């Protein structure tokens, strides 16, 4: 019994230590934020790396999530005779929850792992050590552009996901089930509030910061071995997912 308690305390302390390291890393990153204005080029490349390269997966999944929403939503609403609210239902679900959360999870899987792997590989092939020896700050040069690229890309990806999803829902609801196209959109217009959109975008930004931070942190601090890089990418996805969902609850509660 004592051994179990001791192990538990040990793991908890290790967990706290890890959180502390992450916070220190984040603070250092934010401290050098202004220097990003000097070199815009790498940031643009990273927005491409994380955002443009994720477009295909985001749009595909957005379409299908929207279509499923249309399907399930229609089935559920017909039980209450309120099919004309399909537009509202799908819009609000996408805007407030599914858009930001699913996009964040996909982002962590596609872009997050790419960032972690790139930085981990740089660490493993001594490129980061070489930069330090050459008196170049690796944080400024390789970490910051990647972080900012992710932060900029996420809200944009969330928006695209939501819009594509809406059209997916419309595809199913109007074309398949015959919900009136006019009432689909007009009901949506009169029930969806600016606050819903705000909620979705705020979540998009917050999730973007969180997932990008986790990805660059894991990659930068990976063990300089092939195994280390692999573990870094796995940890990125897992931790990003958990943190995203926790933040989702907190933000939802705050903005309701």
């Amino acid at each position, binding site marked *: 019994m004592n051994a179990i308690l001791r192990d538990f305390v040990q793991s908890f302390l290790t967990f706290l230590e890890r959180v502390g390291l992450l916070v220190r890393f984040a603070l250092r990153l934010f401290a050098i934020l202004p220097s990003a204005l000097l070199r815009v080029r790498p940031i643009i490349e990273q927005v491409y790396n994380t955002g443009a390269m994720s477009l295909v997966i985001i749009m595909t999944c957005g379409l299908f999530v929207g279509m499923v929403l249309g399907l399930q939503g229609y089935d559920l609403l017909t039980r209450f005779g309120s099919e004309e609210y399909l537009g509202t239902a799908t819009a609000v679900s996408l805007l407030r929850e599914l858009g930001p959360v699913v996009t964040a999870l996909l982002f962590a899987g596609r872009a997050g792992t790419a960032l972690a792997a790139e930085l981990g590989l740089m660490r493993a092939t001594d*490129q980061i*050590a070489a*930069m330090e*020896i*050459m*008196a170049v700050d690796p944080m400024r040069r390789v970490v910051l552009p990647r972080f900012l690229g992710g932060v900029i890309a996420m809200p944009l990806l969330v928006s695209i996901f939501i819009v594509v999803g809406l059209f997916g829902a419309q595809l199913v609801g109007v074309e398949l089930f015959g919900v009136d196209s006019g009432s689909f959109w007009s009901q949506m217009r009169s029930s969806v509030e600016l606050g819903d959109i705000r909620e979705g975008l705020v979540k998009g930004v917050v999730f973007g910061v969180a997932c990008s931070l986790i990805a660059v942190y894991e990659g930068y601090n990976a063990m300089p071995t092939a195994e280390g890089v692999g573990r870094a990418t796995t940890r990125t996805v897992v931790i990003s997912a958990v943190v995203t969902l926790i933040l989702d609850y907190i933000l939802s509660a705050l903005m309701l």
Partner: protein
Amino acid sequence: MDSGKIVFSGLDIEIGRGAVTAIMGPSGTGKTTLLKLITGQVGADRGQVVVDGHDVARLNRKQIFALRRRMGMLFQNGALLTDLDVFENVAFPLREHTRLPERLIRTIVLTKLHAVGLRGAASLYPQQLSGGMGRRVALARAIVMDPEILIYDEPFAGLDPISMGVVLRLIRSLNDALGITSIVVTHDVREISQIADMSFIIAEGKVVASGTTAELRDHPSPIVHQFVDGLADGPVPFHYPAAEYHEQLLGGKVFA
């Protein structure tokens, strides 16, 4: 340092200015740690590391960076930045630390590449280079800022005989032509003994022998003898500690 293992204890080395100094020893004696002490990447718990009259431990971040700019380091696997081509890799320190006009940078980079024999490879990418070529490019990068100290970390590891000969020749000729101090960490005794002015052999955390190549060849210590002549058995035993041979074989027990 974090694992609590004592790497060095009672280590005393003086590296002469303008000479080629070799640091050798069996695997795992912490030669890389020694280099990290010199560059200030790692701090000593006790004792001093003095470079050009400066105690490395007393320097702040800015001063360490200034000191590092006077050093050049060649990493074991080259450590070229994979997203830049050969020219840009060599130009990297110039672009980061100086505001030289483009034409001057071009001249300097091509000169250094010529010194290592790779002027024609300027537009290739690190992935396209062979091991030996990559190391030479890294060497060009290490000398591009005309450092006073050049550190080589296992420069011969994994090279074919021809490339090894090339690197050897470059180390010696650069040292003499540029009037710098070269520190070579290696365990390729046969190779380095051809060009080293002074050699140190480190084992068990301290210096077990030092002197010129000739002095080491005639050194009385058995561990030096084993190392220099490459003997399979001696003070560093062939057999990993195990139980008595016939006992284990005939005694029925698999493990000691």
